[in-house]
């Protein structure tokens, strides 16, 4: 490839005229092609003044701790983007859809790991974690269950809830003759804290599930609607 071609490609990359696939390909090649890397550095230097002439703006107060949390999440898996997406979801679940595709593309195992890492960061530590999967085995949400009957729901996908319906969170305590117990309703996609009724401490193998119920919750007090996801609690090692 001639120097002119490299310069042209470098300009297109730096100016931002490539689509995602092309840009990723360039980033991959840069590591092994010093001439390309040099052309990109030179192009970046040409335009840098435009960015350096920007007036700095205020950062979110928790900005640096956000970086640290993402680094901790990434360290567990060599910077896996799915972990980053899951960590972001944990921290700011209502914002943006850009993580969603990434999160959905992930494998269940990655998400379980991501979730576990997420929990280790939160204080106090939950007793149990359950990853709720749908009938296809895709993770849909993560439940963290605390000793004080509190549960936190972390949705991993944007549930499509029909109008007039609500999502209801259930558990089946791991004791003899137990019936499903409602932990609460979810009407929007966000990290939610639900306070359940007085129950035995969450236990290994305890079932959690989310169903779609009519607005106001299941009329029978037991799950009746389609299951969005279900999973069994596991303790943190």
């Amino acid at each position, binding site marked *: 490839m001639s120097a002119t071609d490299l310069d042209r490609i470098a*300009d297109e990359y730096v100016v931002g005229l490539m689509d995602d696939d092309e840009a990723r390909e360039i980033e991959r090649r840069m590591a092994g092609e010093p001439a390309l890397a040099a052309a990109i550095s030179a192009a970046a230097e040409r335009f840098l003044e435009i960015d350096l002439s920007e007036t*700095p703006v205020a950062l979110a107060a928790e900005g640096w701790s956000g970086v640290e949390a993402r680094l901790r999440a990434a360290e567990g898996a060599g910077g896996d983007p799915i972990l980053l997406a899951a960590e972001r979801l944990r921290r700011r679940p209502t914002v943006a859809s850009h993580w969603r595709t990434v999160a959905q593309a992930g494998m269940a195992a990655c998400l379980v790991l991501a979730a576990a890492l997420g929990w280790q960061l939160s204080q106090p530590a939950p007793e149990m974690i359950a990853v709720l999967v749908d009938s296809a085995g895709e993770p849909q949400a993560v439940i963290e269950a605390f000793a004080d009957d509190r549960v936190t729901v972390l949705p991993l996908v944007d549930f499509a809830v029909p109008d007039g319906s609500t999502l209801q969170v259930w558990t089946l305590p791991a004791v003899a003759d137990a019936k499903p117990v409602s932990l609460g309703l979810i009407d929007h996609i966000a990290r939610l804290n639900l306070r359940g009724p007085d129950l035995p401490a969450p236990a290994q193998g305890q079932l959690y599930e989310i169903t779609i119920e009519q607005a106001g919750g299941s009329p029978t007090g037991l799950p009746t609607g389609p299951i969005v996801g279900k999973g069994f609690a596991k303790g943190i090692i």
Partner: protein
Amino acid sequence: MTAVAAADLDHGALLQQCAAGDRRALQALYQAEAPRMKAVARRMLRRDEIAEDAVQDAFVRIWHKASQYDPERGSALGWIYTVQRSVALNLLRGSRHEDLVEPADFDAIQERRQEIHTAEEVWGRLDASGRLRTCLGGLEPARRKVVLLAYAYGLSHGEIAGRLARPLGTVKAWLRRSLESLRECMK
């Protein structure tokens, strides 16, 4: 940590410390550069909270890729802002599709007019004696504008064509030739 004036900071040394695993070096870079990096991300992404996300993502990438920075090739700031721009462009490309059509509502029209208008301001605030300002000044205004819309706002060929109501082929040709002229001029 004591605040260090950005001008006194040795960004290259900090990147090398990051590569060696020194988290405090990353924090020093964050304190010095994140506010300006967020301004760049916000210019491209428009929404404050997404820009904040983009900056945090960029610092994760800076941490993991710091060893790839080669001071022989270019400045540390150039490398850092390339990472930030790549993250922002990634978010931008992932969140939209090409829109060649006319903007749908009044606010969107206003916003786009604003972009076209401020593209000139971006040029105007560059150092008057600098080469970038001079070389951009050597381009016809319409051709200067397409370069700035692409670089400063992350607009694609198609989006620029839509904004300026020009055929896509024309915009592509303008960009290609403008970038060539700039390379020549800035040698």
